[in-house]
């Protein structure tokens, strides 16, 4: 028993074992949904290879000196941005989004790398010596770090991933202690921009709300006017950008804002996913016996709709075990955010937590029908090399933070 205690002290099994559990569930579900498929029957073997590689990378990341992540931050972020630009130019289009590099038979999604790069870079920036989270310039830079990749990913267009980046950015600024007014300054231009897309009327209403809020905050005239002008110009600037874009780019933004532009396509998948999960019942229909899955009612089920394979074939029991494993991971990360040894480690932990949770919430929410249909993979379960790889690197980093939590420098 003694040895076990020592191991738990250096290596958080209550994060690592649930992750392994989820990966195993994922492999079972991928096998079930592809074994009879005309073109995807090799995906199970490929995923096994991805898992083995990502486990190896996990141990490497876990063993690196903790300080090195701080050093990697800027370089990794720069590389991510470079790839995001490059993919728009020479990337390959998969399911309507230009978000992949094809290398040999395999694809690589640079937005996955950018997730890691952005979390590290934001954490680094927000915890650098004399940063003041309520200083307009420092917030501005933090926002730029987070929003720049979003702009590039919007052009691909990949709505789900853009949302994840925004959630991460806001969470880290929030965690850093921004004032309510600061949070308002950060969020309001986004809301006004969104309203400007909906129409002139919505735009004016949004601006009026901003004015009302400014009265509520009782800031001086200069600050209030500045915030109002920022909001006003955000709306007009986006409108201008939208006009100068080429028609096919405008179409991309339209489809980004309204993913149900193909209502039957999206509605059809969501309906079939719900039928699959609901018909699973308490015990499920049994491994390889889900007719929704085996008759392939849900296209590309092994990616964004992997959870409904589990719902159908392993029932309420299986579905609950999967979300419980996620809950354990989230709560352990939450606890770690209070015990990590420095602010950089705390923010990285919060970043990873936010990333995994937003993927989890949007994906499971879509599968059980409580959130809109937005394509995002389910961490550790969905088929895909880039996602698996980056997720395991992130788990490696947080367990590394766990290992170093009691050391002081």
């Amino acid at each position: 028993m003694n040895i076990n205690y020592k191991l738990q002290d250096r290596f958080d099994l209550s994060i690592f074992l649930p992750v392994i559990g989820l990966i195993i569930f994922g492999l079972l579900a991928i096998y079930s949904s592809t074994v009879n498929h005309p073109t995807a029957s090799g995906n199970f073997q490929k995923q096994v290879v991805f898992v083995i590689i990502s486990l190896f990378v996990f141990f490497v990341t876990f063993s690196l000196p903790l300080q090195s992540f701080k050093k990697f931050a800027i370089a990794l972020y720069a590389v991510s941005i470079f790839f995001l630009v490059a993919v728009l130019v020479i990337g390959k289009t998969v399911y309507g989004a230009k978000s992949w590099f094809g290398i040999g038979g395999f694809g690589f999604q640079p937005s996955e790398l950018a997730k890691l790069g952005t979390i590290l870079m934001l954490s680094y920036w927000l915890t650098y010596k004399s940063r003041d989270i309520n200083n307009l310039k420092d917030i501005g830079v933090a926002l730029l770090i987070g929003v720049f990749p979003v702009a590039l990913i919007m052009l691909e267009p990949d709505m789900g991933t853009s949302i994840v980046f925004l959630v991460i950015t806001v969470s880290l600024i929030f965690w850093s202690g921004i004032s309510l007014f600061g949070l308002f300054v950060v969020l309001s231009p986004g809301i006004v921009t969104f309203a400007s897309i909906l129409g002139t009327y919505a735009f004016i209403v949004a601006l009026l709300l901003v004015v009302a809020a400014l009265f509520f905050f009782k800031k001086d005239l200069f600050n209030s006017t500045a915030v109002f002008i920022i909001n006003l110009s955000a709306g007009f600037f986006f409108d201008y950008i939208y006009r100068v874009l080429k028609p096919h780019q405008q179409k991309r933004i339209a489809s980004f804002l309204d993913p149900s532009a193909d209502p039957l396509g999206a509605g059809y998948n969501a309906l079939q996913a719900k039928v699959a999960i609901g018909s699973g019942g308490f015990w499920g229909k049994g491994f390889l016996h889900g007719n929704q899955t085996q008759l392939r009612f849900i296209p590309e089920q092994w990616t964004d709709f992997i959870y409904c394979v589990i719902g159908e074939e392993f029932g309420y029991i299986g579905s609950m075990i999967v979300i419980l494993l996620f809950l354990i991971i989230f709560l352990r990360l939450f606890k770690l955010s209070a015990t990590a040894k420095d602010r950089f480690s705390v923010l990285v932990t919060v970043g990873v937590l936010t990333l995994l949770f937003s993927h989890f919430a949007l994906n499971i929410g879509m599968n059980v029908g409580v959130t809109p249909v937005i394509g995002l993979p389910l961490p550790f379960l969905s088929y895909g090399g880039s996602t698996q790889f980056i997720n395991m690197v992130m788990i490696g980093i947080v367990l590394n933070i766990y290992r170093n939590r009691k050391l002081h420098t």
Partner: protein
Amino acid sequence: MNDNYFGSLFRRRIVFVIIVGFFAICSVQLFNMQILQQPTYSEKSDENSVKPIYQLAPRGIFYDRNHKVLVGNKPSFTLRITPSTYDKKLTPYLEAILGMSPGYIDRILKLNESYSKFIPRKIAKDVSFKVIAWYEENSSKLPGVDYVMETQRDYSFGVTGAHMFGYTKEIPLEVFQRRKGEYDIGDEIGFGGIEKTYEDYLRGEKGIKYMLVDAKQKTIGRYKAGEEDRATIKGDDLTLTIDKDAQEVAEEEFKDKRGAVVALDPSTGEVLAFLSSPQYNLEDFAKVTSNEVWRELNNNPDRPMFNRASMSTFAPGSTFKMISAIAGLEEGIIDTNFKVNCGGGYQFGDRYFKCLHVHGTVDVETSIEKSCNTFYYTLVNKLGLDTWSKYAKKFGFGTKTKIDIPEESSGIVPSTEYYNRVYGKNGWTKGFVISLGIGQGELNVTPLQLAQYAALFANYGKSARPHFLKSYMDTQTNKRYDVKPQYYDIGISRKSFDIVRRAMYLVVNGAGTATNIKLPDIAIAGKTGTAQNPHGKDHAIFVGFAPYNNPKIAIAVIVENAGFGSIAAAPIARDIIKAYLQKDKKEEPKDLAALPAVKEANIEH
């Protein structure tokens, strides 16, 4: 209370509540779906699943330049087997009724083994109505067998055009994977020729019918009474540059011959006729192609699958003499006063190059009219290899014409650099160059290049890239888009052209080598050629254009192993020219005028 600080307790609580709250919502929703509403969902899953049924779109039709149908569509029945429910004991009966040899069905099923057993396999296309009637009577005893109505290419409009039209077949797995998301397994896709180049115009859009199917895939009704269904959109119709009458004459003349014909409109590059003979029967590809058909086509020594018109290469013989003449005139090496004495041949070093006759004193005009070799042995020696080569390349030889079908060869135009590469710096002699003057030696050209060459003479060095597509009709907007020809000018003086064109006129209308095809009402200009063939009898070649004063058609004809160009090739060219020009007089193109073009389209391929 101030909680505006790093990781404040209040903020931690908000995050905690979001995490646990979302977990709670999901647990409740799962409980609701999988336990409370499980019977409803189960029923839906078992009985009311929606399945999209795709309906293939008819491909666009090919019209000729006068709006006559070249390739159409016809309805056909396709018999299918779905392995998951199919009983193998039925195989002998099916094979008997379809008239297939035993083992045929097993072979098709084995071929598609890697696909899900729930996907139906096409067993036979274009099945007769008798078979369908038999199926309808016995369908209850035939589990896993069904049929679908599809449209299929109809080639019954009088022209074959196999090599230019190309064919369609079921999408191969590697193309399916490369064009991910655009096609489904079992879709037809254009293979070769125009069907391939303009696939994206021709394919149209599949329709979808949403059907309610039970878990065993049995249809039990329409989803939402069909209001979500999507109608099929037929592919865009193509108006080709082909003239059906000219093409028909070409195909008729080549019935029992091997060779190729390419005819162009010299000013626009529009292909008027395009033939490679022997052809193959496109009908054979419209059905599920049997092994026997493939074996026969591939083992035939005449190679019917090979597109001779744009892929075969050969030495063009005397038809190439005009290159040297133009080069000499343009470079100022010769003029109309330059004369060579032909005593029946030309001594170069220790080799003697022969001429067919003793022509006496020959100037440039007579040299073409009478096809004197001695004149060109002398001239090419004066020109030098690289000057000759430069002019051959100007006329488009040695590079692809970039015609809008994928099958094309570039041919070879030798140069110093070429010979050095092939034989080494000292491995070749100037003697190699002498034969090039009369279009023999390592020179390789395609019939298409020769037709382009004729067009350049017809139109004084100005033409446009050869192409098949004249316009297309967008099915959805019902607007016609004209293709803008891609014009070019090779930059050779009108004076040189006048001299050489005059000589080409005399070939047919003076005392030349093709006076046998002289017509009373159409002035044809041209040049005969005989290409030496190391494997057998010489190939007969004719290039030409007409009418001489205002050319409307330029043509190249090659008849394999047929001997002299004047006897075997020139009369075919004459008949095609006649078919094209005389019809032009008697009937005006009609339907096209009624459909005004909305704008010009630039087509890239």
